């Protein structure tokens, strides 16, 4: 992280605000995004994510503050910013009676790429996003996942320095999401493209983002990598391990509590599988919290106590939990850092 942050930020938002009448969509937002990183802007619907993105592209004017993209003021020089930034709107649309190739070539030509070059580049990108076979099909027949992948190709055709993806995973099946995210990650790693993606799907974004920002009601309430965020949660233990054991009894609990570094042992109500029909209905799932990684000690303790160990899972705070915690905390917990 330190190496990345040493560089000039690619996107720099300074006290950015946007109001619609009385409603404040974005409230004094400060955010730096550095070259080559994947930043996830997370927040519920209506949090102001899209508005923020539109201001970065100069598509809407901020009420106050400024958005610098690649060192350029997006409000004053939208044309230059748009030349360097690829933007995929949420639920991207294409000209339905044109082929995928035609759509890409059109975008390329709007970016003043000569037609022949645009064509070859479009074909290359279609190959890359896995749409080579349908290059000459009308986009009207495309499924949602195909459209999103085509959207990615469309964003890449102008060789951008930064790509901004608004809800890229919305409405795609899990396999499609996995492929799309893998593609985004690969792009970012191999070509050093800075990626900003917004989402309200925490799990998906968690897999690929270097850093995430939690965005609620127009304010960025936390920003950092997922580990930092989970540590920021007050009183949250640094390490938690989930164990599936059989049988569960008092002596085992004492044994586990006796392991070095363990601070708390809690039985998960209902058990891990909670399926009364399964043969392992009495299987108990416990969550062991500790100040350090206690996995080795715990497994040994379980075996020594004569119980069977069915599963060990280190628990990291998922974004879901983080997200949830922030909402539970409400106003009092708006800044934890």
């Amino acid at each position, binding site marked *: 992280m330190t190496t990345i942050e040493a560089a000039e930020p690619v996107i720099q938002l300074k006290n950015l605000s946007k109001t619609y009448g009385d409603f404040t969509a974005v409230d004094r937002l400060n955010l730096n995004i550095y070259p080559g990183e994947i930043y996830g802007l997370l927040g519920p619907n209506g949090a102001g994510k*899209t508005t923020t993105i*539109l201001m970065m*592209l100069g*598509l*809407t004017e901020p009420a106050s503050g400024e958005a610098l993209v690649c060192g*350029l003021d997006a409000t*004053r*020089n939208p*044309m*230059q910013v*748009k*030349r360097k*930034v*690829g*933007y*995929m*709107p*949420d*639920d*991207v*649309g*294409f*000209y*339905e*009676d044109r082929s995928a190739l035609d759509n890409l070539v*059109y*975008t390329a*030509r*709007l*970016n*003043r*790429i*000569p037609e022949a070059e645009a064509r070859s580049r479009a074909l290359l990108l279609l190959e890359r996003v896995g749409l080579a076979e349908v290059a000459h099909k009308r986009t009207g027949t495309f499924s949602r996942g195909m459209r999103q992948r085509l*959207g990615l190709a*469309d964003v890449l055709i*102008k060789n951008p320095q930064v790509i901004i993806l*608004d809800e890229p995973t919305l409405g795609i099946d899990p396999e499609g999401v996995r492929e799309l995210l893998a593609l985004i990650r690969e792009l970012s790693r191999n070509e050093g493209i800075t990626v900003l993606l917004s989402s309200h799907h925490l799990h998906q974004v968690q897999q690929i983002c270097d850093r995430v920002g939690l965005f609620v009601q127009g304010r960025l309430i936390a920003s950092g990598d997922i580990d930092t965020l989970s540590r920021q949660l007050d009183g949250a233990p640094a390490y938690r391990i989930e164990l599936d054991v059989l049988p569960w009894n008092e002596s085992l609990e004492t044994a586990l509590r006796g392991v070095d570094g363990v601070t708390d042992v809690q039985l998960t109500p209902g058990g891990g599988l909670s399926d009364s029909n399964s043969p392992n209905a009495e299987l108990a799932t416990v969550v062991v919290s500790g100040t350090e990684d206690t996995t080795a000690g715990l497994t040994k303790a379980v075996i020594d106590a004569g119980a069977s160990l069915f599963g060990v899972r280190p628990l990291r705070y998922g974004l879901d939990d983080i997200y949830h915690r922030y909402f539970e905390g409400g106003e009092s917990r708006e800044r934890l850092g």
Partner: protein
Amino acid sequence: MSVWVNKLRGTAGKTGAVEGKTSVSSGAPRTASPFWVMVQKEFGDHIRSWRFVILLGIVTLACIGSLYTAVTALKDGAQTSGGDANFLFLSMFTVSSSGLPNFLTFLSFLAPLIGIAIGFDAVNSERSKGTLSRVMSQPVHRDDFLVAKFVAGLLLIAVVVFSLGFLVMGTGLYTIGYPPTPEEFGRVIVMLLITTVYVGLWLNLSLLFSVRFKQAATSALSGIAVWIFFLVFYGMIVNLIGNALTPSDPNDVQGYMDAQNLLTLLSRISPAHLFQEAASTLLLPDVRTLNPFVTQEQAYLAISTPLSFGQSTLLVWPHIVALIAETSLSFAATYLLFMRQEIRSRS
């Protein structure tokens, strides 16, 4: 040379906003500007669309119908009314028989329809399909998008109108076997130009509606409503006002004249009326004035000959200017509305 280039670079760096527009034109391989790329694409879209095929069908039918009317009327000796065979070729566009409408009527009827059909979903369909925000995120000026829509539509209209006009001229030439004089040809060309402007006005109105209304159906309906208003109701309303304003005293000449002038002014607000007056004046050289009041001396002393081409054009020049002004006004409204809108995906 290099000094100049450096100077240019220097100024471009200082005034960043300007650089966006100018720097690329000095690039080594000249590529089409985004504006013309958009125009090209719009034009292609129109030509491929079903609606264009349908429009073309209607227009062709109208062309055949009006030719049929004209030829039958000419056979029946319609030119006796004018008494001069000089403008026989022009009468092909204006004469009619047995209640069938002539070419001019067809044109004044169809022109708004063409304009509305081409423009009514220009902006809102892009919006609802999610392509607008994608195109706007490319390095394209926002006004270029709108202007490209307009220019592509106008080009298409010009192609349709002129091909229709030439088709009628050509077929007519073949049927009646009477060639046009250069003057007649010029009159027809100017008339076709005015028609293009007129259709352009309707294109602009429908563009305005397509920016204003999110639903294509609403925008089409508003366009048709305005069309019907000017076609049917506007004349009625003007008549109504006329009846109310006409002074009761039959000797009040000044009152009569004021009322009439006001009525003429009112009816000339309607683009349909403007077009009809302009086009018929051009195609009927006998029309010497569009003023409803001619003094006795003027009527008595005027030489009863058709006007020359130049004089006819002079007569309708205010009409042409008014049509262009109305087009510009509605374009300005569209432009303002579009520039103030926020572009979000599919909303």
